């Protein structure tokens, strides 16, 4: 097989998810709300992939950044401006600042201790949001007014068409950035830190500082996801900050596979779609279906659902077995 056709095949492969996403736009009808939610969760899972997958920051509190993004977008829309892009930028900045700040305190630690610290930080934040009723609406949640048209041109419609494309565009830009970050010297050094922080210190890497920056970047991405969720559904609830949200996004990412180009895409989409359909059939027992799915994936595949993709790609293209990294 020639190099040209191999790279052509790979390009096709990379275009596929986006083509599918556009297909959903034209055929999705009443599913666009679900689709938008899936896009948001993909972005959220992608942000976790940067922190957890790439840099090895084991976190059980990533919802903190998603929630900050969501609330920041909500508060921005209520008090300052209904412009979605300004709101998105403000939310991204707020989440990233909190990521840098909290990261600076907790990233001296690793492993289970770090996991507990991320958990504690997000739990404290959720309590604060609950108590700061004036700012966040507390348990009643925050309702956003109508968003101004995107770029002054595209109004948000009842059918959620603009919302879907908006989320898709933001996801596309962020995933380009993530793709780039993960392949940069910075991203590679994060991968090194995940594998062996001691080695990285031995080559002079300021491990803590680099992790803090990575955490801030990941928080920015998660904040964008939260802002999208808030803007497209025009509401924010305390659930955005909950431990369950952190757990769910972790499950989505691992389900898809960490450090894979499309792990977050596959994991979040499968989770959201399976949950929605299972809950339609039996709202009480959809957990049974999801639970079995998770167990099956762990037992069958080596690295999440993208393990299936690898096998299929190898079978289709007859490519030699590639190493674990894309």
């Amino acid at each position, binding site marked *: 097989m020639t190099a040209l056709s191999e790279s052509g095949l790979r390009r096709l492969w990379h275009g596929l998810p986006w083509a599918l996403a556009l297909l959903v736009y034209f055929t999705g009808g009443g599913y666009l709300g679900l689709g938008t939610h899936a896009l948001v969760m993909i972005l959220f899972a992608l942000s976790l992939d940067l922190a957890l997958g790439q840099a090895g920051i084991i976190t059980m509190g990533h919802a903190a950044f998603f929630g900050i993004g969501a609330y920041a977008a909500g508060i921005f829309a209520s008090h300052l401006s209904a412009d979605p892009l300004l709101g998105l930028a403000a939310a991204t900045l707020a989440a990233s600042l909190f990521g840098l700040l909290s990261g600076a305190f907790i990233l001296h630690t690793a492993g289970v201790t770090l996991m507990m610290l991320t958990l504690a930080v997000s739990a404290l934040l959720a309590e604060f949001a609950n108590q700061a009723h004036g700012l966040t609406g507390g348990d009643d949640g925050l309702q956003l007014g109508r968003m101004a048209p995107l770029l002054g041109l595209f109004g948000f419609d009842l059918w959620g068409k603009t919302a879907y494309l908006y989320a898709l565009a933001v996801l596309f830009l962020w995933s380009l950035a993530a793709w780039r970050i993960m392949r940069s*010297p910075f991203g590679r050094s994060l991968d090194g830190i995940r594998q062996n922080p001691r080695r990285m210190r031995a080559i002079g890497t300021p491990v803590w500082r680099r992790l803090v920056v990575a955490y801030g970047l990941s928080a920015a991405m998660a904040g964008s996801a939260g802002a999208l969720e808030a803007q497209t559904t025009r509401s924010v609830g305390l659930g955005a900050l909950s431990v369950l949200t952190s757990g769910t996004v972790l499950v989505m990412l691992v389900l898809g596979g960490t450090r894979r180009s499309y792990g977050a895409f596959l994991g979040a989409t499968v989770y959201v779609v399976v949950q929605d359909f299972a809950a339609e059939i039996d709202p009480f027992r959809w957990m049974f279906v999801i639970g079995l799915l998770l167990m099956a994936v762990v037992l069958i595949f080596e690295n999440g659902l993208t393990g299936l993709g690898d096998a299929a790609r190898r079978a289709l293209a007859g490519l030699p077995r590639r190493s674990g990294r894309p």
Partner: protein
Amino acid sequence: MTQPALAVHGLSKRFGSLVVAQAIELDLARGARTGLIGPNGAGKTTLVNLLTGTLRADAGTIMLDGRPIDALTPEARVRRGIVRTHQINTLLDETTVCDNVAIAVAERDGIAWRLLRFARRWRACIDEARSRLAELGIAHAVERRVSELPYGEQRLLEIAIALALRPRVLLLDEPAAGVPSLEAHAIHAALDRLPGDISVLMIEHDMDLVFRFAREIVVLAQGRVLARGSPAEIAADRQVRAVYLGRSAS
């Protein structure tokens, strides 16, 4: 006399009541080839950790090219030029051999912070990594993952990474430990070809290797410098024979 590359004065460290380093005096001239030996528990690893900054000394100073580095973090010391290799494997197992070196080059050149506009610089890192690996005779393995590499080549890679950091002082922690004798000659050859301007301190149990490599030997026992001198002087030193060679011979 020219200024030593590394000078250590009165370096002391204790854990509770256990003294692991006591008023250690040591200096390495530019291009030195010094062996550090001593029985188990003599404080060799502690000394290395004090030099790299992983441990903080209770007293004493460490000077690199005449400037104290006691306040620096381990990472900053690496950037100043104190580089070590590890006894146990601490390579990035899931990464390719080439990237292992290239990541170190990127770190040395300060481009490891780059998120954007890195393609050309990263390419340069890769090129340098490849040529360094070729120099050490493992060009054939550049695209393999470290975990797939034979042990001897992993130790060579360790040395390649250390050299990629352009050290002024290189601390070799048992560079040939555990390597099958068939592969050991490649490591010996690599050690022989270390650039002449680097000052090397080698910690080693293998006496043949130490005596072959070192021009000066420092003997450590119970946290203090017991003796130092040329290999011949050390071999003849009665005290050393008593605490160290004698025991290992028996």
